[in-house]
C-alpha cells in the first residue's frame, strides 16, 4: 500500500513538473509572440522634417538627416492664416488668409533653416513671479520656396510649403 501511494505521489510530481514546464514554455512563447514589433520610424518623414508633427525626428537626433554634398534635404511646413473679420467678400477673405498662411509658412521654413533666437525674462518680486516674458525672433532670407497645397475651411487657410535645401547653398 505504501509503495503504491509513494509511486503515485512520484508520478504526480513528475507530471506536474512536466506540465508546469510546458505551461511556462507556452507562456513564454505566447509572451514572445504577443510582444508588438518595435515601431519603425517612417524614413520618408524623417528625410524631410515637417512643420508640426515631426516629434520623432526632433527627439532622436541620430535620425536627423545630414546635409552632405551627395544628398539634399526637403523641408515641408504647414503655414496657417486666418481671414480678417471685416472683409468685403469671401474671395477677399480667402486671398488675405492665404497671404497670412504663406507668411507663416515662410516663418516656419526660416525657423528650420536658420534657427530661432529665444530670450526669456522673469520678473520676481516678493518671491512671486510678477511678469514672465518670452521673446522669439527670426530674421533671414528665403528663396525658392514652393506652395504645394492650399486648403481653406471655416476661415482658416492652411498652406503646405516645401523648400529643397542643397549643400552648395551653404558651402563657403
Amino acid at each position, binding site marked *: 500500500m505504501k509503495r503504491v501511494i509513494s509511486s503515485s505521489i512520484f508520478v504526480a510530481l513528475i507530471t506536474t513538473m512536466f506540465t508546469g514546464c510546458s505551461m511556462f514554455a507556452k507562456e513564454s512563447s505566447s509572451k514572445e509572440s504577443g510582444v508588438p514589433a518595435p515601431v519603425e520610424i517612417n524614413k520618408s518623414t524623417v528625410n524631410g522634417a515637417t512643420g508640426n508633427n515631426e516629434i520623432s525626428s526632433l527627439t532622436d537626433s541620430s535620425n536627423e538627416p545630414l546635409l552632405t554634398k551627395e544628398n539634399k534635404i526637403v523641408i515641408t511646413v504647414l503655414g496657417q492664416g486666418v481671414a480678417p473679420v471685416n472683409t468685403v467678400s469671401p474671395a477677399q477673405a480667402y486671398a488675405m488668409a492665404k*497671404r*497670412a498662411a504663406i*507668411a*507663416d509658412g*515662410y516663418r516656419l521654413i526660416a525657423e528650420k533653416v536658420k534657427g530661432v533666437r529665444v530670450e526669456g525674462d522673469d520678473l520676481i518680486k516678493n518671491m512671486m513671479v510678477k511678469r514672465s516674458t518670452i*521673446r522669439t*525672433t527670426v530674421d533671414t532670407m*528665403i*528663396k*525658392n520656396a514652393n506652395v504645394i497645397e492650399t486648403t481653406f475651411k471655416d476661415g482658416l487657410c492652411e498652406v503646405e510649403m516645401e523648400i529643397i535645401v542643397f549643400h552648395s547653398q551653404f558651402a563657403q
Partner: protein
Amino acid sequence: MRSRNGNNSISFSICSIILFSSLALNAGEYLISYRYVVKDAILYNEALFVAKAMKRCDGIPQTAIELETNSSSDLKKIITENSDEFIDYIHKLGMHVKHSDVTINAQYKSTTILTLKTTCFKVDFNDNFARITPLK
C-alpha cells in the same frame, strides 16, 4: 590694326544701335519693392511700390516673367491686373522674413514681416505682354 579713333567710331555705332533698338522695344528700368505684415495670423498691411528708375541699373538678368499688358504701357496697372501671378513670382525671387513673437504672462502676440527689398527690374513692353526681368 585699327586706330583709336576707328575703334571709337565702331563702339559708338554699336552703342547707338543698342540704344535705338531698346527704345524701339519701349524698354525701361523700374524699381519695385514689396512688403506685407501679418499680425497674429491675420494680414495687417500690404504694400507694393513701383517707380521708374532715375539711374541706370547694373546687374545680371535673372529669370524673367511675362505679363499680359492689354496694350498698356503702365507697369503699375499691368502688375495690378496680374497681381497674384506677379506676387507669386516675387516670392520665388526671395523674401526677407522678419518674425518676432512675444508671450507675456501666457498671452501670445506675433508679427511677421515679409519684404522684397527694392530691386531693379528691366521691363520690355511689347504689343501683348511685358517681359519683366530682375537685375541682380
